């Protein structure tokens, strides 16, 4: 196991003038949460206004059932909105954080929907003095739109079950991703019983209109951002694969050409969701970071063989049409608050760091972790950039105890003096990112200066 430290001292290189350092910018991600919870409070207020009293056991049960049902209905809309790839939301909150919120909220919502179902059935059976089985049958088959609602619930539970961590490990990203599309159907099916049976909507027209607005608004966002925008882009930019180039064992770069690429406004550190219109590819849009600054004629991604989809990327033929959604991601120069920047890359996590390394102003240091020296993809161009701008690169090769540069505060501090004064961008596999964050916190780097992006879905 070797370390290959490439300390470069700056020669007479035309360096970009360091721009005025901006004040640490607080991203209003919490603002988005305030909106979400404000909406939930409004939903509770709706229930409060329509409920004069809670009488008896059945009153308590149906009351709790109505509240959980309202919240579940609201949460479904919010969860879809989080995944609607709204550019501003994506920039402000960050794609990975949106995905985390969606996952946490999704689990919670499945349980809300279950609680709603159980409480309403139980409450109604107490109120009408029938047993739970008969009551369930009556409600499912005779209440308006409840058969659809039941199918929606079962679909939601099914998706919840396959999304559980244990099940996730046994299936490919693609399979899981496509099963997830069933939730659109589930939410659609469950929508109608909310309005036809929900006590808070039947008698309240403004509430009904608000509910329709919420759901139709989310549907419009989804349609616009996840369907119309990619189609429009495809027509305007006519993206095609130009070349597939091997970089390291199992790692390839794909060059994509097209027209008017500057209009895309892609910044270093951002990614697109790529859909290659080739057999076995067209049905999946996978997120890959740009591994070079976008120029008006080329985009480049660098992909490691992971799931079935990324493995097949190596076999893409030049000329293949490409749809790209994006650019996405808040892992850009805008996050920086200090003039000194450290980039920590692990494995193929180097991809978004590579264009940042070239373009970030100020004093930039790159530490690149890989298992073996031959796994250091893009090494040649990283060395060139380092030489051109007088930046430093450290290559840390090895695994576990054998690594030459362990991810600890001491080891990092020895390589980077005044580590605590740096902004740190971290991108790599989840284990590496976590270790890096701990080490950086131990070294005194404030949390707001640690920027990371993980693509573990």
């Amino acid at each position, binding site marked *: 196991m070797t370390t290959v430290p490439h300390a470069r001292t700056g020669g007479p290189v035309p360096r970009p003038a360091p721009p005025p350092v901006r004040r640490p910018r607080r991203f209003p991600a919490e603002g988005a949460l305030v909106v979400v919870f404000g909406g939930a409070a409004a939903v*509770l207020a709706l*229930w*409060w206004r329509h*409920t*004069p*009293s*809670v*009488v*008896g056991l059945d*009153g*308590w049960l*149906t*009351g*709790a059932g109505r*509240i*959980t049902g309202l919240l579940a209905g609201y949460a479904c809309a919010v969860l879809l909105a989080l995944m609607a790839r709204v550019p501003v939301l994506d920039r402000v909150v960050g794609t990975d954080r949106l995905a985390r919120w969606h996952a*946490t909220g999704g*689990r*919670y919502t499945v*349980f*809300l929907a279950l609680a709603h179902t159980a409480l309403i059935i139980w409450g*109604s059976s107490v*109120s*009408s*003095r*029938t047993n739970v089985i*008969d*009551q369930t049958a*009556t*409600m499912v088959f*005779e*209440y*308006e739109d409840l058969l659809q609602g039941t199918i929606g619930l079962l679909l939601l539970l099914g998706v919840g079950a396959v999304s559980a961590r244990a099940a996730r490990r046994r299936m490919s990203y693609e399979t899981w991703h496509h099963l997830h599309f069933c939730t659109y159907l589930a939410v659609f099916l469950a929508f109608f019983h909310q309005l036809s*049976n*929900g*006590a808070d909507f*039947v*008698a309240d027209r403004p509430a009904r209109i608000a509910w329709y607005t919420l759901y139709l608004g989310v549907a419009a966002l989804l349609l616009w951002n996840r369907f119309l925008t990619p189609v429009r882009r495809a027509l305007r930019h006519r993206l095609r694969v130009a070349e597939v180039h091997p970089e390291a064992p199992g790692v390839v770069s794909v060059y994509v050409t097209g027209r008017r690429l500057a209009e895309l406004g892609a910044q270093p550190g951002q990614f697109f969701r790529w859909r290659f219109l080739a057999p076995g590819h067209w049905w999946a849009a996978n997120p890959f970071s740009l591994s070079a600054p976008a120029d008006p004629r080329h985009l480049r991604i660098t992909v490691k063989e992971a799931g079935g989809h990324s493995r097949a990327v190596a076999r893409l033929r030049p000329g293949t049409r490409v749809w790209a959604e994006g650019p996405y991601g808040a892992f850009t120069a805008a996050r920086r608050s200090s003039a000194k920047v450290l980039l920590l890359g692990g494995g193929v996590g180097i991809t978004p760091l590579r264009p940042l390394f070239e373009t970030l102003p100020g004093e930039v240091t790159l530490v690149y972790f890989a298992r073996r020296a031959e796994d250091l993809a893009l090494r040649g161009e990283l060395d060139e950039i380092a030489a051109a701008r007088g930046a430093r690169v450290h290559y840390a090769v090895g695994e576990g105890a054998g690594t030459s540069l362990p991810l600890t505060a001491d080891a990092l501090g020895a390589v980077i003096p005044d580590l605590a004064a740096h902004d740190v961008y971290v991108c790599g596999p989840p284990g590496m990112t976590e270790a890096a964050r701990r080490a950086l916190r131990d070294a005194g780097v404030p949390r707001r200066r640690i920027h990371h992006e993980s693509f573990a879905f």
Partner: protein
Amino acid sequence: MLRAVAATTATVAGLFLLLALKPHQSPTAAAAPPVEPTPGGSPSAVPSAPERDGTSGTFTGDTIDTARGPVQVRVTLAKGRLTAIAVLKGEHREGPSADALARLTKRALAAQNAKIDAVSGATFTSEGYRSSLQSALDRADG
């Protein structure tokens, strides 16, 4: 795991709090303890109507908004006895509530009061029916 426990606890506590803050007596019907169904063994037993001695006439109940739409009834009393109940609002042509109102009317005429069991599958309608009927009877008393 810890987060799951926290989320569950917070949700249950929040639900409990919201429900506990509401009044626990029905605003229209005076707290009606669940009444046993009329004993089936004595179909000829004439239920008593103690409060409304002598009152005759028609009395219209409140319109009660339920999850399945408004329900309103009008009662006819003959010397304190409940002789007819007309449903002014709340008829459903389809679904579980279709014949629920007829059954509720039958039950109410048999019980001679509003303390009747809900019809299975028509919980909301039943609640609205009972409240409207109770308000009509209250009007007759007043």
